[in-house]
């Protein structure tokens, strides 16, 4: 059975062009870029090119790009750097809807004696900016707000927040893992100090992250050891993946328009048709400010894990905000923070598309979903027809 993959906010297919670019750097050109010999040095030159490609995607300079092992490491490094370089400041501001990479770190730091403010969101998932600004203080070491939410696709006004935070002399970081490659980002014209991204969300391999650190931002390394990445991130470079990331950055720029036209149109079609064909369902999140590839749909009176497993019978791959899929007992913290009723949160399915999806696949999903929901509702004690 062919997989119909609409779970691209979880991970993406590595682009064939990226694989091709990487292949020589495993068994043939395997040198260490730090070596003195030309064999290693040639790999170093390729890394420089990849760094430039990533910098171009972000509107940054190559010196502002650090390669890490994943988005989570980039996030941890950013927060750690801000706290280490402002040892007298004990306050952190973030949102209630962050990815666990920031959320769990915030909770951990709160246990370590830091004061952590989690900014609430409204029913559409929009941040309470007044609340955020009101809590800025001389004690605030860093503000970290994601650029776009992984579960709903809601885009936050990160540039506006960054300007306000920066004007107070406070460091601003954004987890842009879901945003990079899907919406235009230009650090040359931005007040963002640090930005995280993850390779495998934009058709590069897993195990490669990037942290953008604006020139002049106080920094302290998270991993210590060798002199790699200008002494800011020790550890031998993941050469093949970095080279793949460079190519993926280039491809992302080329496909940005496709993402915002064709992919967006497929997403809109999927959403509109499902809302039309399935009774008692609704879209979670801000319909205005949203990633072009994501839709989060709540099917009331049914449970997400059961939906996913029936979708799986047709090879359709998506994610759920339900409790049961994660092994926790409460539905997604994002949906709860938004005040999505439990009746809807438990039955929420996230579809996230990519440039590799086709119109046929979308039609296939539109065709298969209504009977799946109907079948589970017929089993549900809460479902009353009509």
């Amino acid at each position: 059975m062919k997989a119909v993959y609409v779970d691209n906010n979880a991970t993406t297919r590595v682009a064939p062009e990226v694989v091709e670019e990487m292949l020589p750097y495993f068994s043939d050109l395997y040198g260490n870029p730090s070596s003195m010999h030309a064999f290693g040095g040639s790999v170093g030159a390729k890394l420089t090119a990849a760094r430039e490609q990533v910098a171009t995607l972000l509107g940054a300079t190559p010196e502002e790009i650090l390669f890490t092992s994943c988005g989570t490491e980039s996030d941890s490094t950013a927060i750690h750097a801000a706290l280490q370089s402002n040892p007298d400041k004990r306050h952190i501001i973030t949102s209630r809807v962050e990815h666990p990479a920031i959320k769990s770190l915030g909770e951990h730091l709160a246990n370590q004696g830091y004061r952590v403010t989690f900014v609430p969101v409204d029913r559409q998932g929009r941040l309470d900016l007044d609340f955020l600004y009101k809590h800025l203080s001389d004690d605030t070491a860093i503000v970290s707000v994601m650029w776009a939410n992984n579960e709903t696709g809601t885009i936050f006004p990160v540039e506006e927040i960054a300007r306000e935070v920066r004007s107070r002399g406070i460091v601003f970081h954004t987890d842009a893992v879901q945003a990079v490659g899907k919406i235009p980002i230009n650090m040359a014209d931005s007040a963002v100090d640090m930005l995280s991204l993850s390779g495998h969300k934009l058709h590069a391999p897993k195990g490669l992250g990037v942290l953008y650190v604006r020139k002049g931002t106080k920094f302290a390394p998270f991993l210590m050891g060798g002199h790699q990445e200008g002494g800011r991130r020790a550890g031998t470079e993941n050469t093949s993946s970095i080279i793949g990331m460079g190519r993926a950055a280039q491809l992302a720029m080329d496909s940005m328009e496709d993402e915002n036209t064709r992919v967006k149109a497929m997403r809109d079609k999927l959403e509109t048709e499902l809302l039309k064909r399935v009774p008692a369902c609704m879209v979670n999140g801000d319909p205005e400010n949203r990633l072009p590839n994501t839709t989060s749909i709540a099917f009331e009176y049914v449970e997400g894990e059961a939906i996913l497993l029936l979708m799986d019978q047709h090879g359709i791959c998506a994610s759920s905000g339900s409790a049961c899929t994660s092994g926790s007992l409460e539905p997604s913290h994002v949906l709860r923070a938004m005040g999505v009723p439990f009746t809807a949160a438990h039955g929420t399915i996230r579809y996230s598309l990519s440039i590799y999806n086709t119109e046929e696949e979308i039609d296939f999903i539109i065709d298969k979903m209504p009977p799946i929901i109907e079948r589970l509702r017929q089993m549900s004690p809460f479902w009353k027809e009509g």
Partner: protein
Amino acid sequence: MWDYTDQTKEHFLNPHNVGFIDDFDGIGEVGSLACGDALKLTFKLDADERISDAKFQTFGCASAIASSSALTEMVKGLTLDEAAKITNEDIADYLGGLPKEKMHCSVMGRDALEKAIAHYRGEEEKKIEGEIVCECFGVTDIQIRRAVTENNLTTIDGVSDYVKAGGGCSKCHDKIQFIIDDELGNAPQTAKKPVALTNIQKIKMIDATLEREVKPSLKQDGGDIELVDVDGNRVMVKLRGSCASCSKSEITLKHYVESKLKELVSQELVVEEV
């Protein structure tokens, strides 16, 4: 993905006995939409007082649907006395086992069956007995005690897996721990605060709190703590491992160790590193 057995998958994909018996003899409803799973069970008896038919309606994940399907198959042909002996373990076993995080699905089946039998016998509307411990999922101390003893649970996570208690906001974790300790025969040391502590009592409680509450989280970061002495309300400790060289040790002491001891032992305590 969950590691479901073939039997569980089969009962989820092709559930047996879905529906509602209009002229039921017994009916049992448990769970709610808010909790994420719910089951409505109906059964019919034959002339010999054996269950001739049973049907279910379930809102929930694959294992909830499979457990309901299994339950209805298991009870058919049984007398009510026989059916009443079915435990949640029996339901899980019928399915070849359930992932431990999903055991609450089998408990839901057992609870619905119990209610349906009680309904038939006219023991309806049993008042909720005991005191609500977990407010997120509305679980009482009696339900938690029963899950602990019947399934030999020893941890809060275990209790959450079976009856959901403690799986939400986690505010009730202290109370659940108290019940577990009580059932295991460990006298809980910090749950009841005596009005005035003798020095020995105080030292014992400080030591127990450090052992149970503080050390595990410090150890996660490669650190450790040792109680050196207690003088009046001054608690003298030594930090070890990574804590000893950590620039944040002062904060760890004041904000974490001291606040834990104040919360669980006495508000008067002051922690000092020696």
